[in-house]
C-alpha cells in the first residue's frame, strides 16, 4: 500500500486534468463526483497509507519513493520523489481530509455557478500542489508545490474574475507571496551552493555538520527561507494580501486561506527546523514576528465589519501563534496548533459560507443578527468553532493547542515573559473578536431574511469539523490535565521536544489557569460590549482617539496604505514615466541629428547651377589656399 504513495497527489491531479480538458462538456453531477471524489479517494488512500505507516517501524524514520528524476547533471539531480514521515503524514491527512470535506461542501455551495467545472479543476489542482509541497523530499520539488499552491490561490481568489476588485486581490496575493518566494529561492541557491544538495534530509545533516550554531551562512540561509514562509503564511510584513484574498468563494478561503496553504510557511520552518535551530537570531525573529503579527491582526480583527475579513485577520493572528511556537522551538506545538486550527478555522469559514449563502451574500456583520434560531445547525457548529478559536477552557481543542504554545513561550529556553505576555494579550483579543462575531451574527434582533437553508452536503462537513474541533485536542494534554503525549510522541521522530530548563514545570498549571481565565474574560467582555450594553463600545469608538484607532484597525494597521505609497506608487509612476523607454531617446536623438544634418545638407542642393558653381569656387579657393599656405 505504501508503495502507492504517488497516488495521493496523482488522484487529484487526474481529476484536475479531466475537469480542465473536458469539464465544460460534462454534466454537473459528474463534475461534482469527479472533483470531490478524486480528493475523497486520495483521502482514503492517505488514511490507509497512514495506518500502515504508523503501524510499521518506518514511523521512526521516513519512507521515500522516487517517481522520476526531474533533471540530472553535474551532480545536481533533484528528483520527483515523495517522502513520507510523521510530519508529512500529518500534513497529508489534514490536507486530504479537510480538503475532501470542503470539496463536499462546495458541491452544494457552488451549485449555481456557471464555471462549476473550472472551480473543481482549480481546487483539485490546489490539493495536488499542496500534497506535492508536503510530500516533496527536496526543496526544488517543494518549491514547485509552493508556487503551485500560490497559483491556485491566485486562480481561486480571482475566480469571479468579472469583478476587477477580485482580480486585483488575486494579483496582489500572488505578487506579495512571490516577493517572499523570491527570497526563498535565493535561499535555495545559497543552500545548494554551500551544501551541494537540495534533498531536505541530507541538507539538514550537512548543515548541522558544516555550520556551527549562529554562523553567518546558517543565519542568512534561514532568514531567506523565512522570507518565503512569511509571504506564504501572511505574517508581518507580508500579511496584507490575506484579507483581500477573501474575494474568492468562501470554501476557497476555508481550504486555502485558512486550513492549508497559509500554513505552508509553518510547515517549511518545521521541516527545516534544524537549520533554524542553527540560527538563533532568525529563530528569535520568527518568535517576535509571530507575536507582532498576532497582536496586529488581533487588533485589526476587532474593528472589521465584514465577517470574512474578521476570519482572515484571525487566521493571520493564529498563524502568528504558530510562528511564536516555532520561534521558541516548540515545533510539535506549532504543528498541533496547525492541525487544530485547520479544523476550527475551516469550520468557521464554512459556517460563514453557510450564513452568506442563506442571506444572499450578506457579509456585513452589522446587517446580520439573530440567526441563532433560523440556522440552528450552523449556529451550533459555528459556536463550536468559535469556542475553539477563543480557546474556551477544557472542552475545546483550541484551548489545549494554544495553552501549549503559551506555556512554551514562557518556559522554553528561547522563550521569555514578553513573548508570553504578547501571546496572552493576543488570546484576550481573540476571544473578544470571536465572540463579538458570534454575538453580532447570531444574537440580537434579526436584521436580515434567511432565503434558503444549507443542505446535507454543507451540513455534514460542518458537523464533522465541529466534532473534530472539540475532541481533536484530547490527543495532547498538559501535565496538569492528564499528560497525554500522543501527538508530540508521534512527531517525535521528526521534531525534537522542547528543552525546558528545570524548575519551570511547576508553573505550567498556573499559566494554564491564567490562559483559561483570559479566554473567559474575553468572552465576557465581548458579551458586555457587543450584546448587553453596546453603548459603551459605541461611545468609546466615537471619541477622537477611538475613531482614529478604529480607522487604523479597520485598515489593518495601515500596512496597505504604507505599501501603496512606499512601493506601489513609486514603481507604477516610474514605470509610467518611462513607458516610452528613455534609452530609445538616445537613439532617437542620433536619428534626429542625422535627420537634421540631412536637412541642412539637402538645403544646399538648391538645384541652381550657379550655386553649385559657387561651391566649386569656394572649394578651389580652399584647396589652393591649403596648397599655398600649408
Amino acid at each position, binding site marked *: 500500500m505504501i508503495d502507492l504513495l504517488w497516488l495521493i497527489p496523482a488522484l487529484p491531479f487526474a481529476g484536475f486534468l479531466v475537469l480542465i480538458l473536458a469539464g465544460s462538456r460534462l454534466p454537473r453531477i459528474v463534475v461534482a463526483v469527479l472533483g470531490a471524489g478524486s480528493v475523497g479517494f486520495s483521502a482514503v488512500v492517505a488514511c490507509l497509507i497512514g495506518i500502515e505507516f504508523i503501524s510499521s517501524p518506518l514511523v521512526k524514520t521516513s519512507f521515500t519513493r522516487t517517481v522520476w528524476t526531474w533533471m540530472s547533471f553535474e551532480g545536481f539531480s533533484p528528483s520527483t520523489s515523495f517522502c513520507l514521515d510523521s510530519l508529512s503524514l500529518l500534513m497529508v491527512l489534514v490536507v486530504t481530509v479537510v480538503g475532501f470535506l470542503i470539496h463536499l461542501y462546495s458541491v452544494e455551495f457552488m451549485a449555481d455557478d456557471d464555471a462549476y467545472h473550472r472551480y473543481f479543476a482549480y481546487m483539485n489542482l490546489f490539493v495536488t500542489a499542496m500534497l506535492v509541497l508536503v510530500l516533496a523530499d527536496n526543496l526544488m520539488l517543494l518549491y514547485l508545490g509552493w508556487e503551485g499552491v500560490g497559483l491556485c490561490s491566485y486562480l481561486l481568489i480571482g475566480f469571479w474574475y468579472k469583478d476587477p476588485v477580485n482580480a486585483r486581490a488575486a494579483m496582489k496575493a500572488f505578487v506579495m507571496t512571490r516577493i517572499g518566494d523570491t527570497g526563498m529561492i535565493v535561499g535555495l541557491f545559497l543552500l545548494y551552493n554551500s551544501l551541494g544538495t537540495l534533498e531536505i534530509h541530507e541538507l539538514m545533516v550537512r548543515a548541522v555538520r558544516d555550520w556551527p550554531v549562529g554562523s553567518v551562512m546558517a543565519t542568512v540561509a534561514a532568514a531567506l527561507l523565512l522570507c518565503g514562509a512569511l509571504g506564504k503564511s501572511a505574517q508581518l510584513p507580508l500579511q496584507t494580501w490575506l484579507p483581500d484574498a477573501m474575494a474568492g468563494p468562501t470554501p476557497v478561503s476555508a481550504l486555502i486561506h485558512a486550513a492549508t496553504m497559509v500554513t505552508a510557511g509553518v510547515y517549511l520552518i518545521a521541516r527545516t527546523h534544524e537549520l533554524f535551530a542553527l540560527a538563533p537570531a532568525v529563530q528569535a525573529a520568527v518568535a517576535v514576528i509571530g507575536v507582532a503579527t498576532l497582536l496586529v491582526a488581533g487588533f485589526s480583527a476587532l474593528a472589521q465589519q465584514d465577517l470574512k475579513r474578521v476570519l482572515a485577520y484571525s487566521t493571520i493572528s493564529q498563524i502568528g501563534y504558530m510562528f511564536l511556537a516555532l520561534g521558541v522551538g516548540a515545533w510539535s506545538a506549532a504543528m498541533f496548533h496547525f492541525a487544530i486550527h485547520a479544523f476550527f478555522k475551516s469550520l468557521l469559514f464554512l459556517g460563514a459560507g453557510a450564513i452568506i449563502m442563506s442571506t444572499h451574500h450578506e457579509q456585513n456583520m452589522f446587517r446580520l443578527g439573530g440567526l441563532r434560531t433560523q440556522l440552528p445547525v450552523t449556529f451550533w457548529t459555528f459556536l463550536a468553532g468559535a469556542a475553539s478559536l477563543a480557546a474556551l477552557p477544557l472542552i475545546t481543542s483550541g484551548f489545549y493547542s494554544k495553552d501549549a504554545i503559551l506555556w512554551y513561550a514562557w518556559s522554553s529556553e528561547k522563550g521569555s515573559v514578553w513573548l508570553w505576555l504578547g501571546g496572552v494579550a493576543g488570546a484576550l483579543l481573540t476571544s473578544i473578536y470571536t465572540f463579538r462575531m458570534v454575538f453580532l451574527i447570531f444574537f440580537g434582533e434579526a436584521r436580515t431574511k434567511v432565503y434558503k437553508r444549507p443542505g446535507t452536503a454543507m451540513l455534514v462537513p460542518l458537523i464533522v469539523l465541529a466534532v473534530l474541533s472539540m475532541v481533536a485536542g484530547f490527543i495532547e494534554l498538559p501535565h496538569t490535565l492528564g499528560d497525554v503525549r500522543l501527538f508530540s510522541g508521534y512527531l517525535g521522530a521528526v521534531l525534537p521536544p522542547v528543552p525546558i530548563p528545570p524548575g519551570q514545570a511547576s508553573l505550567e498549571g498556573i499559566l494554564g489557569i491564567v490562559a483559561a481565565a483570559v479566554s473567559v474574560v474575553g468572552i465576557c467582555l465581548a458579551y458586555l460590549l457587543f450584546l448587553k450594553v453596546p453603548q459603551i463600545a459605541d461611545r468609546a469608538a466615537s471619541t477622537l482617539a477611538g475613531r482614529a484607532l478604529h480607522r487604523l484597525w479597520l485598515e489593518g494597521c495601515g500596512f496597505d496604505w504604507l505599501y501603496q505609497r512606499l512601493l506601489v506608487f513609486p514603481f507604477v509612476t516610474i514605470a509610467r514615466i518611462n513607458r516610452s523607454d528613455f534609452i530609445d531617446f538616445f537613439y532617437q536623438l542620433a536619428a534626429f541629428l542625422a535627420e537634421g544634418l540631412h536637412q541642412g545638407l*539637402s538645403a*544646399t*542642393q538648391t*538645384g541652381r*547651377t550657379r550655386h553649385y558653381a559657387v561651391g566649386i569656387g569656394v572649394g578651389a579657393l580652399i584647396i589652393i589656399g591649403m596648397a599655398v599656405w600649408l
Partner: protein
Amino acid sequence: MASVPMEHGLLLAGILFGLGFLGVLVRRNIVFMLMCVEIMLNAAALAFVAAGSRWAQPDGQVMFIFILTVAAAEVAVGLALVLQFYRGFRTVDMDAADRMRG
C-alpha cells in the same frame, strides 16, 4: 618673339579664368553661362601654351588642341541642351531648372 616671364602669361590666364568664373556666377542666361565657360576653357588653354613656350616644348600646344576638342564637343552638346532647355521651359533662365532641389 616676346621675352616675358611665364608668370605673366599665367597671370593673364588666371585673370581671364577669374573673369569667366565671375560670369558663370553672375549670369542667369544659359547662353551667357556657356560663353563664360568658353572663356574659362580658353584661359586654361592659355596657361598650357604659356607653360609650353617657357620650356620650348610642344606639349603645351598639344594640350591646347585637346582642350579645343573638349570645348568644341562641349559647346555642341551644351548648345543642343540650351535649345532643349528653351523648348522645355520657355525661358533661358538657368535658375528655372531647379527640379533637383534637395
